């Protein structure tokens, strides 16, 4: 009898070890793609030399400057932004008990975009400078960030308010999210109509989420926020598992569901707001990546959060690399590509119909 029971524990440990190995394999792949991504572009650098340069050797001053000033920050930005969007999505899916939960589908990205647009127009935080490739700089990124954050939080508050009022059903959440999304899109259009051409260009360029936009300082700031959110979400991983089993089960297990839901939404929105404010709107990563991770490692947040991080980082990094290579010498903003990925994935989710 004990051998049979010991067998259960052994099989269970194999089961969890497999999940860990998927995550480790994902991290390894991410490293490979990162090196490949740094090596490709208008100037090709052999991958081995990329590794050497990253390790501190100076092979050529030009390569040094390409790698350290342009490609490495962009690759790291893709990894950090992918991480942030994916963890926001995975946590929202859990606390809203809704497979379509993500900063994008719930209108939070649109709200942040509206806030950023408002800061560009009303507070004069943005301008264009046509001599650089991306053609846009945000004069005062912190005003834009704060405005984007404030509006993301307003959208969050409205969703939570309706959740309190009408119950946290998937239908209510999605419908309120869609309504808010179009409301803020309308608001953005309204602002665009009254913008002068410099402001308009600034806003439109801003909306296309682009990983090449962040400087080392901005990357550092996003990284700190994403890292804190990751730690916070990881600390709460058992609670998300409990909420997955139903609010009542979770409460019976001693989880303060309303509190977990509120703080989860606040952190997820914060991460979204900061990413969107610095990089622009990057759609669907927050929706797709958690689901890809779920298919591989299931819904157990002890592994799913890390799995979504790897998936988000990997997917945004791949998309970014492809977007850069697609129509050289131009660089396509990565958001254009991720939005194309979104539609088929949505349809796939509907067809699979799991937990919808």
């Amino acid at each position: 009898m004990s051998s049979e029971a010991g067998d259960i524990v052994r099989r269970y440990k194999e089961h969890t070890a497999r999940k860990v190995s998927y995550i480790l394999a994902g991290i390894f792949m991410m490293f490979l793609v990162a090196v490949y991504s740094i090596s490709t572009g208008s100037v090709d650098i052999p991958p081995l030399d990329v590794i050497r340069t990253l390790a501190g050797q100076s092979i050529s001053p030009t390569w040094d400057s390409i790698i350290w000033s342009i490609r490495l920050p962009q690759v790291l930005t893709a990894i950090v932004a992918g991480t942030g969007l994916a963890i926001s999505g995975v946590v929202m899916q859990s606390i809203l008990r809704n497979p379509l939960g993500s900063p994008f589908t719930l209108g939070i990205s649109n709200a942040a975009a509206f806030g950023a647009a408002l800061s560009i127009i009303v507070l004069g935080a943005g301008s264009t400078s046509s001599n650089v490739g991306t053609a846009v700089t945000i004069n005062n990124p912190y005003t834009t960030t704060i405005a984007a954050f404030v509006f993301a939080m307003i959208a969050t508050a409205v969703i939570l308010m309706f959740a309190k009022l009408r119950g946290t059903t998937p239908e209510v959440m999605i419908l309120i999210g869609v309504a808010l999304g179009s409301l803020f899109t309308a608001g953005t259009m309204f602002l665009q109509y009254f913008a002068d051409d410099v402001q308009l260009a600034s806003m439109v360029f801003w909306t296309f989420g682009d990983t090449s936009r962040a400087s080392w300082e901005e990357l550092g700031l996003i990284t700190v926020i994403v890292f804190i959110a990751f730690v916070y979400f990881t600390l709460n991983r058992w609670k998300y598992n409990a909420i997955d089993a139903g609010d009542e089960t979770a409460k019976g297990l001693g989880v303060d569901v309303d509190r977990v839901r509120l703080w989860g939404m606040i952190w997820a929105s914060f991460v979204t707001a900061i990413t969107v404010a610095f990089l622009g709107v990057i759609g669907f990563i927050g929706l797709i990546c958690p689901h890809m991770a779920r298919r591989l490692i299931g819904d157990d947040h002890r592994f799913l959060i890390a799995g979504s991080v790897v998936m988000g980082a990997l997917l945004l990094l791949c998309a970014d690399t492809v977007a850069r290579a697609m129509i050289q010498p131009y660089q396509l903003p990565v958001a254009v590509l991720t939005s194309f990925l979104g539609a088929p994935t949505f349809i796939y989710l509907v067809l699979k119909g799991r937990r919808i």
Partner: protein
Amino acid sequence: MILDVNGVEFNYRSKEVLSNIKFHLKKNEILAILGPNGVGKTTLLKCMNSILKPKSGTIMIEEQDVLKLEQIEIARRLGYVPQRCEPARLTAFDAILLGRMPHIKWNISAEDVMLVEDVIKRLKLEDLALRYIDELSGGELQKVGIARALAQNPKLLLLDEPTSSLDLRNQLDILDIVRDVVKNEDVSAIMTMHDLNLAFRYADKFLFLKNGTIFAAGSIADISPQIIEEVYGVPVTIQNYHNVAVVIPV
């Protein structure tokens, strides 16, 4: 005396739902809460572990008032099995492991894993252990829910209509499990039920709710056809079949 409930009142907004609820339960006893739909059976059950906060009253478990404890402290003493457990892409082992949550700080220990293994063996769920719960049947899912509550190491199990929407085989399986656990371990159970015959077969004590308060309570000897008729508005007779009381509407 494991449980002593005194003067519990519950209001939903300003509407009085439960008033003057008073009963007690001994170790190794099963109490069935009975009464028509909407009378407040589930509400009463949720008040027991403070998922819903009663307006007044005391709920003493081993000389401690549940209503004065932190939610996590309550979860260490009371295991709650809701009517429906939501399926997710988790193995049954993971789902049962969740019952250890009130007891763990940062991560599960080898002891937690052994406890879960032990619960799985006691409930004979070895075949389910490594299956995903979103692929289980309703009966199997309910067993996982009970196993999770037992993994909490509770003094008292609360079950909300544990047999609703289950077939006959599973109804008996589930209630056999509850009875075995209560009789052999240091646990008592309260369950809300609709099926009077199943209640009479498995529970030791009965509590009939009517108009938000206790209409009648006691052991099987105290339950008369008149009580049932008063509570449900259906005339019945109670027959004895091989020492089991059977309710038959007439």
